[in-house]
């Protein structure tokens, strides 16, 4: 078996992968880069794209959206917004689209509700105040 190095792939919503790999291929800004154990220190950013890594002689694929990688001779860290296996993708995308729509709604809703509640409170307080003042 070839020499291995430690790879960590961390997405914002989970630790996607952590373990020993033999070979890693990433899509950097200016093309594909292959990384094996003992690579020189390197920092580069990763646009949305594909990555693959070799574990126990088997290639694993993943889709990655914006992130960056720090390579050290004996370890590498990838930090990305999201990272997912091919079989997870469709559901994820649907969820994200839904999240965006909900987000826009919530943004409007929250502010609206606040002002409505404030107005309702003001009206109630005003009524109470006036009734106490003039009607005893």
């Amino acid at each position: 078996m070839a020499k291995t190095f430690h790879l960590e792939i961390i997405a914002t919503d989970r630790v996607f992968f952590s373990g020993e790999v033999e070979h890693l291929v990433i899509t950097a800004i200016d093309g594909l880069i292959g990384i094996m154990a003992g690579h020189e220190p390197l920092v580069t950013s990763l646009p949305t794209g594909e990555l693959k890594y070799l574990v126990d002689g088997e290639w694993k694929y993943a889709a990655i959206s914006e992130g960056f990688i720090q390579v050290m001779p004996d370890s590498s860290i990838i930090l990305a917004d999201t990272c997912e296996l091919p079989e997870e993708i469709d559901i994820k995308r649907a969820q994200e689209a839904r999240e965006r729509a909900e987000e826009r709604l919530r943004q409007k809703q929250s502010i609206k509700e606040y002002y409505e509640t404030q107005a309702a409170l003001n009206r109630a307080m005003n009524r109470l105040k006036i009734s106490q003042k003039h009607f005893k």
Partner: protein
Amino acid sequence: MPNMREIRERIGSIQQILKITNAMYLMSSSKLKKARKSLECTEPYFYKLQSTIESVLEHTPHTRQQYFDRREDIPEDKRKKGYIVITGDKGLCGSYNHNVLKYTEQKLKEAADIDNCYLFVMGQVGRMYFQRRIQNDKKGYVDGEFLYTTQNPTLYRAREIAEQVLEKFEKHELDEVYVIYTDMVNSSLQEPRTLRLLPFERKHFGKAADGTMKKLPKASFMPSPEEVMNYLIPQYAKGIIYGAMVEAFCCEQQSRMTAMDAATNSAKDMIKDLSLMYNRARQAAITQEITEVCGGAASINEE
């Protein structure tokens, strides 16, 4: 001694409030469960991001990248400082909002010139507080169009915020940017904290294993340090803002749950005390009645 009717009314109203606080307690505890799960998922990213960037900066060669521009020619009292303050959308969560606001006030006081402070407040409570404050003494500046809720943080929102702030920095409308949020130290301890977002500082020296300072080796950047930093810094800003939002949201739920739990408990205590008082008043009334009857009977007998 207050009369029975008054006590009864009070017990009734406390019971009504108890129902509300208890419902809010249940709601916030279920929200907390969700918030805590997302915090657990995001925390590794948040901390790893900070430590990785730190080590990347140790290996960064000199760059003319704009986010590294410290603008040292601007004197301390002329520097425009931006603060992204994360507060809650609603009250009734104990001292959570109060702590963040107090901490921010303190930071503003420390700043050399408060007129050069720009606040980007997330959450209704903080926004209202600072807008009112600024109307009163016309100091500092709150971005009125910076309307973001802190509920259920998303990456999408963090990205928008990061873009806005970076753009302001590029246009020289801001010289320094900080994030103020509440950090969850553990479930019972939360404290407000500041993170510096911009400008970046490159480290020339690091501590070696034997404690001496040594020059750090430079890593290579593909295709160039400037190019990489152009991608990396917005990425970092977004990650930090997202992480801070998740932490703050979890803290808010936690403190609301604690506050509502305390409110429910003290309502129960009050009801207990009042019931005792009510029973005493009732007993006293009965005793008095018996005395009166006895007294009346005795006076009839005497005649």
